[in-house]
């Protein structure tokens, strides 16, 4: 997709990231435009999840600047939808799929969610958008990893976001389910025009719909097309050690590092 003339919705201007008192990125610079699908790649601890938390306003950059819709990020912004990593969830709670999705609508409000037709309809619509209407009354704790992930996306969609932040939505999914998930996210992005920042370990399932990749490694980052970024030379430079990129049957393999 060619770059649109509209202004970027998200800009990192030389933004530094610290995690546990340690500098993990000293200057990230990139722009994200409406409707773009960007994968955030890199090894564990490179700052992928932390980058999302900066966009959410949960953390502040240690240097530089971040502009989201032209202003510094703050919490409570309904123009972004977010699904966290699975491991940070409490899956064993007494909640139905419908309740989980409903949090996206009014989970931050005080009081109780009393049954109401408009609310129910909105939740059902979001469930339908992720092909999960049949799960509505099911207990969240009894659903599979893929089903849970779809509900989290439905939750994130309920505030009609212009930007979706997905943290490792493919973790715990096998290859065919991962491909289904990517197809779903891509469909949402095309029908709604939502930009997507997609954190993942493996670039292969998202290759068909990527606009750009943002690769974080060795305290540095590069944004660009897959062909430009995921190359032996570029990744070797990022990691600061010899890394080999192999292509086979349309799949990319990065050798010499733990991804």
């Amino acid at each position, binding site marked *: 997709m060619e770059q649109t003339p509209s202004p970027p919705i998200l800009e990192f201007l030389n933004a530094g990231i610290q995690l546990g008192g340690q500098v993990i990125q000293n200057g990230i610079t990139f722009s994200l435009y409406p409707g773009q699908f960007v994968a955030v790649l890199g090894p564990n601890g490179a700052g992928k999840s932390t980058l999302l*938390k900066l966009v*959410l*306003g*949960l953390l502040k950059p240690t240097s530089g600047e971040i502009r989201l819709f032209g202003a510094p990020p703050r*919490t*409570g912004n*309904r123009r*972004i939808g*977010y*699904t*966290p990593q699975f491991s*940070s*969830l*409490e899956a064993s*709670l*007494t*909640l*139905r799929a419908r*309740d*989980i999705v409903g*949090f996206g609508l*009014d*989970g*931050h*409000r*005080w*009081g*109780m*969610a009393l049954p109401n037709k408009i609310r129910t309809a909105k939740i059902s619509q979001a469930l339908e958008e992720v092909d999960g209407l049949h799960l509505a*009354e*099911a*207990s*969240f*704790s009894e659903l599979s990893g893929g089903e849970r992930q779809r509900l989290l996306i439905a*939750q*994130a969609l309920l505030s009609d976001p212009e930007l979706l932040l997905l943290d490792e939505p493919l973790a715990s999914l096998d290859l065919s389910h991962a491909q289904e998930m990517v197809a779903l996210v891509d469909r949402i992005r095309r029908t709604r025009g939502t930009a997507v920042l997609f954190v993942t370990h493996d670039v292969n399932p998202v290759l068909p719909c990527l606009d750009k990749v943002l690769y974080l490694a060795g305290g540095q980052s590069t944004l660009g097309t897959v062909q430009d970024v995921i190359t032996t030379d570029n990744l070797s430079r990022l990691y600061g050690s010899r890394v080999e990129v192999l292509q086979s049957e349309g799949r990319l393999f990065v050798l010499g590092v733990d991804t």
Partner: protein
Amino acid sequence: MMTIFHFEFMRNAFLAATLVAALGGVTGFFLIQRGMTFAGHALPGIGFAGAAGAVWLGFSPLAGLVVFTLAGAGGIAKLKGDPRERDLHIGMILVTALALGLLFLSLYPGFAEPAYAILFGSLLGISQGETQVMALGSLALGLFFVFAFRPLLFASFDPQAAGARGVPTRTLGAALLVVTALVVALCAPITGTLLVFTLLVAPAAIATRLTASPLKAVLLSVALAEVLVWTALTLAYFWNSVPGFFVAALAFLVYLAVRLVEAYRHRRVK
């Protein structure tokens, strides 16, 4: 049968037990959702140490109970780390508190009657005034749960997303502990610190096995708690025995039955 309501002390007991059960049923649901059941076990124990200390120093045991449960709640709210480590620390706090309680009891010259009353409760010895205090307290704490219902569940399920949406997740977690401490302080003189957590844990544990809807689970938890205390009081009246025993024993039997039915159904499905 109606002779049971003939005595004022029985009427007061039923009223107080009804309030205690409702509070325990609701609080327990949220403790389970937050994985804080063990804190619900520990706070009454910590409170007992406070009551014993107050009796030793010549203060009202209730004052000691309130101070210690609130301090305990504050301490537990400050604990960080994963749940396993957190429970370990709660365990250490509880052990230390119980040791202090034992020390205070031994320092008291003679038999520390008021401290033992807090330990075992006195459901059948509540005055009308105490019941009124109970009713007001229950109303205030009940309102907290109505107010915090949705964000508290959101924060328990997904602290990251809730925080990103502007829910004060840490404050809510601490508020739940403080409210639990107040529930314990309100209920302990009636059911005794030893049995407060029967009502804090058992009805909610049973209810969450039976439904996945949070609202239904809360209502069911309260209903179960009510049935438990009423049955226990009636049995205790007719057999001239202690109600606390029947509450705990009945709760255990119902929980066991629910789990057995579940296991049986599970095997048939497979």
